[in-house]
């Protein structure tokens, strides 16, 4: 289909991108947390992909290439919105010490409590330095494998693994005390 578009059948581009409409939007939404902005970023990303289709190399997966374009668009927009965004990290930093609490062990089954905790997780994710957040979103939300994540971000597989581990530990460290309090609040008033 890519060859058809490059041969001048531009209508084929619409069919080419249909399977990826959702994942490109999800990537933008996970980074920006705003539906209108995510939609705009997704549109920009697909337009950019169309204009640059001639540069796409078949060694890469088309979805990885598209997600990388969407991520760059989302990143640029985030930087405009939040100029103080932390985007430098040192991959040789020492280990993250997790929160050593034993109070919160179960996944809540109630929808409301689950939603409450998910919104805490989203807030904690937004606080992570950008390079950790990007790896986390690609691996845990976009479900990209380690190799695809490395290709999307232009970093090594070892860096992906290290950043993912640090991101998870940072989230655990920040969230475990909050999750323990959500959980104990429920335990104290189980009949309400």
């Amino acid at each position: 289909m890519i060859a058809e578009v490059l041969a001048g059948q531009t209508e084929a581009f619409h069919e080419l991108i249909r399977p990826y409409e959702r994942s490109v939007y999800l990537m933008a939404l996970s980074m920006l947390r705003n539906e209108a902005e995510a939609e705009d970023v997704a549109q920009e990303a697909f337009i950019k992909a169309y204009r640059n289709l001639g540069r796409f190399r078949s060694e890469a997966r088309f979805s990885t290439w598209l997600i990388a374009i969407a991520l760059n668009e989302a990143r640029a927009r985030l930087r405009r919105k939040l100029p103080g965004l932390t985007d430098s990290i040192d991959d040789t930093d020492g280990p993250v010490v997790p929160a050593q609490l034993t109070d919160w062990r179960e996944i809540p089954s109630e929808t409301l409590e689950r939603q409450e905790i998910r919104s805490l997780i989203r807030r904690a994710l937004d606080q992570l330095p950008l390079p950790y957040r990007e790896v986390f979103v690609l691996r845990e939300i976009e479900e990209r494998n380690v190799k695809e994540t490395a290709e999307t971000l232009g970093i090594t597989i070892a860096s992906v693994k290290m950043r993912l581990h640090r991101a998870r530990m940072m989230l655990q460290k920040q969230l475990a005390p909050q999750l323990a309090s959500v959980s104990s609040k429920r335990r104290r008033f189980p009949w309400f």
Partner: protein
Amino acid sequence: MVLNCRHVWEYISGYLDNTLDEQTRADVERHLEHCEICSAILDSTRNILILTADDRVFELPVGYSERLHARLREAMLKSPPPEPQSP
């Protein structure tokens, strides 16, 4: 090999992703059997990932696809069709 807690924390992601070698996995499991703190850290990390995965299920905004293709058509009219480029 007997692992201490700090060692185990470094293996938590590998344990969750099932990428540890057999021996290390067994060492981690032996530690988890008697260490309540580390098994709570493992459980809370796993739970965060499970709840994060809930965010994969969502409805696209109504009309998203139509608006996207309309904007693409507009952009296509304005730009020349893409051409293959040599590496």
